[in-house]
């Protein structure tokens, strides 16, 4: 659909976003006055401690949660209405935090990868598109007929990535996509994301509490705490000259090898 003509770069912007949750006893401002822009061809990191509101911001950007204030713009137009959401969802995909539970236990891998192709009405040979996507994430043969409980954690993570990539999105949002993985696998996934970014110009928003992963992957990063952006800049700048106490803490928390 939107793949045909070559329009200007795809963009997803949040303008002045706020979202507040009320529980019985307290009011939590999960996201407060946040401006954020994810552009095709750029890689942006979003780092912050657990519970800082990163996942809520992601839900707002994906349109699954409505902001109390502010708006989300996809290619400059507000992200409201079915048609606009549909276009945005095809161009902006996301890799969930807990891949094992984001896969339907009743359906095969193949069925779950074909689903978005069918729903977005993407033309072409779906079988080979699914194969391509799986190969892209390093799952070569024998996975099509499996169900979630027949996959390891790493395999499930890569199936979730393949499902996000199968519609050929222009922007990818990843929520703690490597935090549940062991080191070799983590590096493999980071390499894959880096390659997608470098080779295909995919825009990335990489959300993590792990500053090292952000440093490996992203040119720029936002530091997020208590629902606000507390620091912003090139990743190396944040990494080597942290200004805000939260950034400082995150940098200090990186384990170092003894000299």
């Amino acid at each position: 659909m939107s793949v045909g003509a070559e329009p200007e770069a795809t963009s997803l912007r949040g303008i002045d976003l706020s979202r507040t949750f009320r529980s019985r006893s307290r009011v939590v401002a999960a996201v407060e006055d946040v401006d954020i822009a994810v552009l095709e061809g750029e890689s942006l990191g979003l780092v912050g401690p657990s519970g800082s509101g990163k996942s809520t911001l992601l839900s707002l950007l994906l349109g699954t949660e409505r902001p109390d204030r502010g708006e989300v713009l996809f290619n400059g137009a507000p992200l409201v209405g079915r048609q606009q959401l549909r276009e945005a969802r095809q161009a902006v995909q996301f890799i969930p935090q807990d891949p094992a539970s984001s896969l339907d236990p009743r359906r095969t891998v193949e069925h779950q990868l074909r689903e978005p192709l069918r729903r977005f009405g993407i033309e072409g040979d779906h079988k080979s598109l699914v194969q391509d996507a799986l190969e892209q994430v390093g799952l070569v043969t024998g996975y099509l007929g499996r169900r979630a409980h027949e996959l390891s954690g790493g395999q499930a993570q890569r199936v979730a990535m393949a499902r996000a990539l199968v519609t050929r999105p222009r922007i990818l949002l990843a929520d703690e996509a490597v935090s549940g993985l062991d080191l070799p696998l983590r590096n493999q996934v980071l390499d894959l994301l880096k390659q997608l970014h470098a080779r295909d110009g995919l825009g990335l928003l990489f959300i993590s509490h792990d500053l090292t992963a952000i440093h490996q992957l992203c040119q720029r990063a936002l530091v997020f705490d208590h629902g606000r952006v507390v620091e912003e800049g090139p990743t190396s700048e944040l990494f080597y000259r942290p200004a805000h106490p939260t950034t400082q803490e995150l940098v200090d928390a990186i384990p170092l090898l003894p000299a």
Partner: protein
Amino acid sequence: MSGRGWAAALISRVAAFAAVVVLIGSLPWLSGNSPEYTILRARYADREATPEVLAQIRGELGLDRGPIAVFADWASGVFTGDFGTSWISGRPVLPGMLEALGVSLTLMGAALTVALCMAALLCLPVLRAGLAGRPSRGSGAAAAALTALPEFLLAAVLLVIVAVWLNWLPPYGWRGIEYAILPALALGLPGGGLIGRLVATAVAGVFTERWVHTWAVAGHSRARIALAVLHRAMSGVVGQVALVVVGLTGGAVAVEEVFAVPGLGRALLGAAASQDIPTLQAGVLLLLLLAAVCGGAAALIRRSLLGPAGRSGHLPVPGPPLSPRRTWWLVPAISGGALLALIVAGLMRDPYGSVYGRLQSPSWALPLGADASGRDVLARVGHGAVDTLGLALAVTAACLVIGLIIGLTGAWSTGPVEVTNAAPPIIAGILVVAISGPSAAGAAVAVTAVSWAPLAAHTAALVAEISARPYVRSLPQLGVSRARILVGTVLPALLPEVTRHALLRLPGIALALAALGFLGLGPQPPAPEWGLLLAEGIGYVERAPWTVLGPACALVLASVLAVSLSSADGGRNLRPASDLPAPDAEPDDGQKPPRVTDGAGQHSEALAGR
């Protein structure tokens, strides 16, 4: 639930309640011309049924002013606390009905205690199996037999054995706590069987969730895990349990009738029999209020049990369904075989001919004896199977379809479900009879009209629960529309459990039909319908127990068959875990070995190794 969900639930409650109030208020008009004759016989036995007299009575009752005026009169009275005067006795309706409600509430409280004890006994083995690392639903034969026991049969048997033969407890009346024991047992045991079954299924399901394994490994005590599992399981079934509690009101009609307890149910039955519509109206309205209170309490409990996890999409995902035991076919095969033998043997004999002695005892030539008219009981049971089970199956299928459709509408279904549940089959039957007179079709309509509600409630609860799972919440991002998520993902995920539930209700529905027959609100003699057979035999249960034994055995066998089959269904479309293909070796990276064993296999080790 979102703000919109609450609003929808509220609107649907108000709308459904209003619809039923209008129905009740219009009863005198809906029941057409028949009441005048009833009143003529009751009050003016000396007069002739001339058109002038009938018109005079219609004028006295206000029936000649059309439906709107009839309803308006009644509704304005209700708002000022005036429920009208009885058409039969001429006295105000409300004080007597409130007194009856008090008696019924006491009886229901006692029955509930019995039911909860029974349910606890049924859940214990499942809980122990789960803690030992072998989650299993059990075959459910005992629970099925309990759910199948008709309250009025149980009541009659208890009356005969405990009160008449053993002389341990008083048989009739309502003068002290000892009078409540037998009715409470008759009323509570079937409900307890159903509650126990629902909770046991939910508990077995929760034991396949991964957190149970994690907790076991983390060294939590068995008691703590058991409590947490129960807490989690209850959130899914608390609505059901509330429905069972409300459903006690229906069973209470028959039980109160058998034990001569002066409760609300007996008052309603009397009012329907004598077409005392104002009394009927007041009683049904009180039952509705009772049900609304129960429904509201259940909703609050469920909300507090689920906590914020239900709203924010963080409910655990269950493991793959449990594979059935190797001997799962044993119970259904035996009960099905026995039932088939009974039916085939009966079908070859003549159900209508009075060729034997009155109440002739069983012999080789007459295996189940003869009834009070000298007819062959075996033949009548066999022929009755076609009527009773066929009709019950059709009603069950209709209820499943209606329940699924209404349940999928989510919060909008709240009102109709609660209101429908406030009218157990017997109450609905009473209303249908008040409108159109007794018949088999009327009984089927009455039972269908109220029996879809538990299935709709179950469906709605599962929709809320499944929609909160992460894999469902990620679907919109893949372009899947809301309707398609509901039909393509949520529906298949809940279908086995709801179908299971519907099958679990098949004996109950057969019994509801039977109970209507028993109370004279369903098929009419000489149809060999099982309920009617029980009703015909119940008067002779002391002298000729075989007249009841035949149809009772048939119903119990049918229910054991239905429930044990539905227990096996969960494993039908799943291969046993050991038959899964071995995972491909992972040559390219050094990741963890794939977790291919099912969740159950994993906790078995962890929990058993404790």
